[in-house]
């Protein structure tokens, strides 16, 4: 697709190796590469441009952790110094004893978090050995109730929406508390199971149609229909 200078690049599906734009007007972002004066997609997905930065939003692939990401994981193992957490990513992550905001007796680690517990955490650091996590912040820690669902991590930005528009719509419509982990795990806590299951359905709806235009309005319509069914 040829684009003239200063013209906005339209949202389009690209495949690896495809030229998104030519010339010096744009900068290559995530999922793109600059070869000569062409910006080329290196992933399959949707090409988008904002503030001259061209990037490709992938809809598949693994979770690539970033510092500061909010994630949800499962306690896989307990060691002498902390917990091994499974984030559903190929890299192993670790929550150190020091990153828990209270005093813990040696040998009493399982009283705080036991194997199989779900936990909301933040990515503290990424090293060559793996991911380090922390729960020393508000809103982080063990999950006691509610349900957890899994979507592809690449669809998380769409589920949250621009400035949280999508997730806020779901929250308002269902009156549930929703925590979206960047790794694709979503924690839903509502007043009853019916509400939680409705949220699950809504999120699956968004994940499936994640590339539709005006999805927030579509979602409102969807909620209306669902409520009529009851």
């Amino acid at each position, binding site marked *: 697709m040829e684009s003239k200078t200063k013209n906005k690049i339209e949202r389009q599906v690209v495949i*690896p190796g495809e030229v998104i734009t030519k010339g010096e007007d744009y900068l290559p972002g995530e999922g793109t590469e600059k070869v000569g004066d062409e910006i080329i997609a290196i992933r399959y997905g*949707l090409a988008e441009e904002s503030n001259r930065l061209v990037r490709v939003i992938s809809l598949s692939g693994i979770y690539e952790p970033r510092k500061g990401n909010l994630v949800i994981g499962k306690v896989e193992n307990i060691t002498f110094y902390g917990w091994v957490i499974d984030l559903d990513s190929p890299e192993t992550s670790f929550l150190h004893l020091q990153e828990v905001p209270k005093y813990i007796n040696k040998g009493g680690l399982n009283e705080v978090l036991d194997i199989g517990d779900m936990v909301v955490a933040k990515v503290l650091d990424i090293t060559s050995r793996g991911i380090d996590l922390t729960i020393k912040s508000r809103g982080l820690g063990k999950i006691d109730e509610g349900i957890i669902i899994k979507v592809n991590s690449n669809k998380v930005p769409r589920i949250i929406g621009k400035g949280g528009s999508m997730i806020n719509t779901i929250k308002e419509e269902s009156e549930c508390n929703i925590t979206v982990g960047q790794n694709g795990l979503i924690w839903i806590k509502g007043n009853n199971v019916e509400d939680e299951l409705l949220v699950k359905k809504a999120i699956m709806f968004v994940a499936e149609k994640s590339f539709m235009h005006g999805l927030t309005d579509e979602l409102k319509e969807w909620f209306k229909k669902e409520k009529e069914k009851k």
Partner: protein
Amino acid sequence: MKMATKTFKRPDGRKADEIRPMQAKVGIVPNADGSALFSFGDTIAIAAVYGPKKMHPQHQQDPEKGTLRCRYNMLSFSVDDRIRPGPSRRSTEISKITEWALEPSLLIKRYPNMVVDVHVNILQANASTRCAGINAASMALAHAGIPMKNIVSSVSIGKLDKNLVVDLDKEEEDFKEGEGSTDIPITMTPKGEVTHIQLDGRITKEQLKEAIELARKSTKEIYEVQKKALKESITT
């Protein structure tokens, strides 16, 4: 030297540069991270991609870059005489060939200690199975969100007696007249860079160059089919 005769007729009546009807589709294996189907006429290949995931066994981990691991398999009912299921000399070789054909286009350096698994299964075989397999695998890798420089396309060029033809089928593979049949599978990026070429048989230097040019033209056609299938699977 006698050049290709104009009057040469292919057994199924195709033109020399005519590929069998192609079909391509992505997302056919819901459990996989990426998947694709590609067919040349009666040759059907499906590819499923899993990963990147931690390499197992651990001693095979490469801390410098990610690894690509392919497995080519012909299903026992894919040919007339049932073939014994399981790995064979031939399938192990083609697995390795598929890996080599795909690897130059991938950017898996950023996934150290990890592996990308590609499973290629031939549902139905009528020659050119490795080419169909590579085409399907390339689409499946893109579908799985693996970063890559380009999608590769593969085609088999055949030399029947002295005539060059595109996309051999079984009947042509068994061609006996004159110099017989020579099969040359070639894989290329849409820019025309060769990532894989195989040749066993006799061919002159000039004719091999001609064959590569023919492949360059044919892989472009295949690339368009692959591109269309990938683009159509996302609805905006």
